[in-house]
């Protein structure tokens, strides 16, 4: 089938502002949107710019705004998009070129929640023990691929540069509720600040945007509840 791809373009070396360009292309319904972007780049316009790598939804490179919703281009099939498709870069980030945005603030927010195990009790031999229930407690938030689809979908992040955003909270959650970690108090303190979880207005855009089906809003709520109760439950949400 023939589709019209309407792509927001911006080349910082030649353009003052962004504009849309249209490409008519022949596609199969089972093609990934990324395949179609590649087809345009390889055979029609090599200047079209976007990030990509794994092409099956695991590396997190190609999040973009697809018909108004944040999705991974490699995890979206053409048959689900209609005949006229609008592609824009993630909003809330500085556009570097076409569909490619500046990820530095996103990674800075991620780093601000100390996203690594804080623990000084590793046994001299063998593993630390953790029950399957304790392991299950934070399973959902280990799935994050740092694609920024959630953070960019959050209306709070559009107007508030301070807010760490849902992805950073998801990654804080992954450690706060890990029974092996000793840094929960430290991370909760960071997320209790003006830039932290209380900025969240429970809009659920993040949950809808997540290509890994992480219950993002629920994770944020669990962090809020831990702050209110002053307790971290390592087996039950």
């Amino acid at each position: 089938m023939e589709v019209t791809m309407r792509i927001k373009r911006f080349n910082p070396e030649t353009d003052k502002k962004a504009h849309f360009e249209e490409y008519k292309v022949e596609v199969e319904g089972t093609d990934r949107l990324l395949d179609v972007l590649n087809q345009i780049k390889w055979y029609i316009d090599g200047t079209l710019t976007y990030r990509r790598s794994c092409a099956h939804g695991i590396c997190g490179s190609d999040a973009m705004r697809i018909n108004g919703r944040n999705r991974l281009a490699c995890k979206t099939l053409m048959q689900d998009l209609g005949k006229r498709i609008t592609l824009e870069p993630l909003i809330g980030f500085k556009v570097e070129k076409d569909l490619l945005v500046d990820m530095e603030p996103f990674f800075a927010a991620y780093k601000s929640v100390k996203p690594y195990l804080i623990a000084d009790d590793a046994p001299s031999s063998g593993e630390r023990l953790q029950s399957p229930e304790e392991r299950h407690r934070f399973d959902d938030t280990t799935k994050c691929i740092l694609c920024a689809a959630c953070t960019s979908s959050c209306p709070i992040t559009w107007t508030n540069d301070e807010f760490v955003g849902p992805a950073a909270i998801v990654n804080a959650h992954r450690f706060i509720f890990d029974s092996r970690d000793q840094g929960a108090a430290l991370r909760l303190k960071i997320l209790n600040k003006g830039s932290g979880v209380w900025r969240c207005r429970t809009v659920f855009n993040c949950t809808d945007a997540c290509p890994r089906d992480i219950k993002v809003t629920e994770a944020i709520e669990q962090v809020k509840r831990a702050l209110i109760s002053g307790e971290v439950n390592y087996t039950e949400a």
Partner: protein
Amino acid sequence: MAYHRYDAVIVGAGGAGLMAAIQLAGKANIAVVSKLYPTRSHTGAAQGGVSAALGNTEEDHWEWHMYDTVKGGDYLVDQDAAEVLTREAIDAVYELEHMGLPFNRTPDGKIDQRRFGGHTRNFGETPVRRACYAADRTGHMIIQTLYQQGIKHNVNFFDEHHLVDIIFTDDGACCGVVTYEIKTGEMHVIHAKTVLIASGGFGRVFKVTSNALAGTGDGVALAFNHGIPLMDMEMYQFHPTGIYKMGILLSEAARGEGAVVRNSEGEAFAARYAPTLKDLAPRDMMSRFIHQEIKEGRGIDGKDYVLLDFTHLPEEVIDEKLPDITDFARTYLGVEPKKEGVPIQPTAHYAMGGLPTNVEGQVIRDPQGTTVPGFYSAGESACVSVHGANRLGTNSLVDLIVFGRRAGKHMYGEIQSNDWAELPKNPMDRAREQIDTLLSRKSGESVADIRKEMQEVMMDDVSVVRTHEGLTEAHDKIRDLQQAYKNIAIMDKGHIYNMDLLEGLELGNMLECAETIVAGAIVRKESRGAHYREDFQERDDKNWLAHTMTYRESDGSLRIEKKPIVITRFEPKERKY
């Protein structure tokens, strides 16, 4: 141009590169270069597990793991290296747990383990639970955990820097790299006492592959162009269960948990070829079984695919232990694996070959094992060789953590005892000239066309089954494409995020890899592991119990030498499962 000086520069931020970086962090001044953001590295796509003889769910010993590795590699494995791999796997897995990796757990709280292809108890008796795992996203958890440690230890990351050259002194020591900053187009010379190439594999030389678009063999090809040999390049693994036409990997963990592969008659045919291990026969064999079934007309609907059947598995096993891969089937094929079989075909997956190294990760330049000062490699870009002619599932992740760690530790010793070697004059000239040419050439050959032709000929003639005729044809084709490549023209002439330019550079690297794969496959007149010759169907230990080392001569031709393999414990035997 920018100039930097570090004790060590690590190219590639996947499992091997980051594992090495963590050994050096805080002790030496290091830079980690990646053309992606580190968490985008292809280690993150690994699914099923990382093996170590922990014995958490049943008796296991590293000697059994070593035997399986040697036999799985069809005895082309260097056994001293396989011993290091399997012994140190145990500590390395514990180290990952200590760093925070969220492994699945046994009821008593230990790391859980599951079955995987070719891993057996007591030297081949029956499958053993050896693969430590985190659902079916073990690689994702490894890359996340290691990157997190990198942040914790304040590692200097050069994100989105593309490797465009490796710098050697006139005496042949490695003394740095040249990178191209993708965001700005600026060139960087990173002067270093030690360089680690951990740039991964090159599955993108084939049409159907599980590999990321970034898997283009940059580090391997650039080193080769500086006279460094490549080892066992003909040994390229096809994973039996890639999603039909797309090549996306469906982990062997599926079969470890009980899924089977069925032909058009509904037969789980692996049992007919490998009565003991059945669907858990090693990957080279499973891929050939599938090829044979299709050839004999038992592909589904007469087409070139078969089905991976999960339908008899308990729903909770699918949801808890195989969530990602079953989601791939739903997303990309619209198939519900709980109800119907998933169309699969063999997919280009893993390079057993690469830059030859010793067990310290030092690159060697000849069959005698002479090391190249300052130059290291680990992970898929390297060939130690622990995988021989066919890698066992999970052993790639074991390789990354064991030899990434060893390389990092050995680099530390070299950093302490050595000073910086003097850079040659104008070290970035070669890359600068190449890039300037691409940016100024107005018209020429299409990168996409050349790449497509390369991928097609490699798939048709250099994949699961090979013949002299097909290989010769592929050789001629690749040489023609290399000629055409000299005149490529790219469309984007800008300096900011010029991904078109990078694809042009990557194609040159892929063609180098493709040429050496074909050359090795032509000279190896036997069948061993992943290298199956229809015209030489038997393994020939008399002539070919040896690695191939391929060199680029100054006149542009290739020279191939043999390197003897190391046998310590296990004499070659017929390989039956």
